């Protein structure tokens, strides 16, 4: 079995008047060790919600309606808090106390806009040491040695550990957060928009760092992004989300070379091709906006913006079907 398997995860947000908005519906994917998955889609299509749901970190209005998040830890021997026994668990069925032992220790997450994820009034080094001491049951000296190691790994001089977040540049804060994410040697690193708001040079540095870590530590990465260039560079598999549902799920080569879902196709066309820029004189865009959660279309979520819809699309939601082994598409038009 895979390291992590998410099956049919659905998340609702409850509004004040009690209506449930379906933010994520029926999303499934799996992640093998040392592989990486890209989660792509426009803003507001449920990428971050899926990740927060997996870790049960949803805001108070969020409800996990159904699904399983099966996780098989391989390296529990290194985690005293988990009793050193490898086992398979459904993260959604754990008690809150149990769940806390898995967070960061086995699955770490670097949030969107990670520069704001540091507490402004505490030293960066102390903040990186916090999860180490929390999960590793180690003393302060051991923890600060580890902090030095981690900072070197992400290319920050150890003296900077004594500085406060405001003394760091944006890119350094991002790297400090990555260092913190690696503090407990997790199996899985979730990186939510790790490169947004960073300049191209820093972006490249962060991405190199991820690839390097993956090779060196056997880390599995889930990359949430809308930057398809980043996905092509790092990911093995890609899950395209639209309106809270899976549109297409396949290997990165399949997604880039033979996308089947109209949304994926349009996304690809909306992206510049650096090798043959002359072939595309202007970039395509997808007219319209993703559906708002309180007015989701009755049928296919993409139907209002789709260029090859038929009558059934407006009525019935297309099921996610395997067109080939490992290539899943939810579209009425590609059924045959």
């Amino acid at each position: 079995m895979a390291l992590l398997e998410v099956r049919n995860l659905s998340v609702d947000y409850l509004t004040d008047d009690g209506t449930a908005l379906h933010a994520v519906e029926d999303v499934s994917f799996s992640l093998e060790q040392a592989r990486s998955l890209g989660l792509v889609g426009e803003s507001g299509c449920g990428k971050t919600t899926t990740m927060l749901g997996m870790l049960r970190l949803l805001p108070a209005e969020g409800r996990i309606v159904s699904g399983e998040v099966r996780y098989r830890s391989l390296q529990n021997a290194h985690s005293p808090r988990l009793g050193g026994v490898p086992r398979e668990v459904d993260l959604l069925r754990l008690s809150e106390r149990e769940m806390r032992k898995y967070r960061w220790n086995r699955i770490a997450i670097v949030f969107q806009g990670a520069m704001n994820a540091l507490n402004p009034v505490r030293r960066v080094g102390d903040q990186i040491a916090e999860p180490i001491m929390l999960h590793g049951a180690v003393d302060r000296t051991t923890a600060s040695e580890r902090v030095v190691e981690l900072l070197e790994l992400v290319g920050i001089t150890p003296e900077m550990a004594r500085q406060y977040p405001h003394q760091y540049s944006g890119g350094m804060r991002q790297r400090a957060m990555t260092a913190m994410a690696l503090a407990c040697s997790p199996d899985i690193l979730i990186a939510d928009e790790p490169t947004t708001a960073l300049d191209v040079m820093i972006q490249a540095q962060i991405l190199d760092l991820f690839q390097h870590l993956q090779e060196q530590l056997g880390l599995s990465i889930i990359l949430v992004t809308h930057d398809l260039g980043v996905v092509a560079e790092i990911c093995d598999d890609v899950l395209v989300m639209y309106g809270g549902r899976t549109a297409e799920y396949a290997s990165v080569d399949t997604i880039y070379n033979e996308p089947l879902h109209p949304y994926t196709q349009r996304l690809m066309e909306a992206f510049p091709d650096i090798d043959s820029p002359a072939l595309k004189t202007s970039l395509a865009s997808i007219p319209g906006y993703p559906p708002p959660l309180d007015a989701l279309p009755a049928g296919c979520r993409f139907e209002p913006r789709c260029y090859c819809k038929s009558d059934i699309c407006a009525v019935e939601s297309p099921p996610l079907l395997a067109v080939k082994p490992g290539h899943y598409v939810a579209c009425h038009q590609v059924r045959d």
Partner: protein
Amino acid sequence: MEQFKEIWRTFRRRPMGIVGGLTLLSVVFVAIFAPWLAPYDPDEKIDVEPGDLLAPPDAGHLLGRDDAGKDVLSQLIYGARVSLTVGFVASFMSMFIGTTVGLVAGYYGGRIGNALMRLVDFLMVIPDLPLMLVIISLWGRGLWKIILVIGLLGWTYTARLVRSQVLSIKERQFILRARAIGAGSPRIIARHIFPQVLPIILAEAVLSISGAIIAESSLSFLGLGDPTLISWGMMLNFAFERAISRMAWWFLLPPGFAIIWVSLGLVLMGSTLEEIVNPRLKSHHLFDARRMVALVAGESANQRVNE
């Protein structure tokens, strides 16, 4: 600690705050060194001539004598001890309760938070002084009873203030990150939220000391003070009952001015601190022209040193 250095850097450039701080320090100094500063023991039984009663100021008694022939200046000096004890202890109690209630109500919210805030509303609606009067007259007079009553009734505003801050802090991303590293709620409150509200509590504490001192003085003035101790309020009470008809202003005015002196100092200092740490009262940095100039001057000075 960085945040306190930052606050101090701003604070020391505010004349109002510095004046307030020095005013408070003078009273603290008098209270600590009372036995050395006071020319007489205020409790000493002395033999008095009839002419000594309410004698006006002279060389031996700079502020004259009270209706029992005792030195007013010495009473005033020892009175500082009572006022400051009541002020500091009651304020610490209020801050402790208010902060705890505010943190819990703000962080957990829901039913617990609602219940706590309704209790706060309830206590806020009742006017403090009449309630204190009723409690003290039922319970009896005594220094610790007064401290307890003031401390237990004075925490409501702090609770609201802290709660409102917590509500905003807990939505910030580093709190989500703290949850993501597997930290439990008590840890998040203690390590990540409390340090953020601490400066605000500090400013509020300074203001609340003056509130407590005034409350104690009012109670004593109304005759509900600790009968075994001479506090400024008590002096006012005696003076008002026995000296005013004899035009003995030297007995009435000093305790009044002492109360004004210490509360003014605390309020000046407290509001300056509050202005620095309370985001709602903070003026935009661009409007504070003097500070920007000082900053630039400081920077170029640093550069010169580095070169």
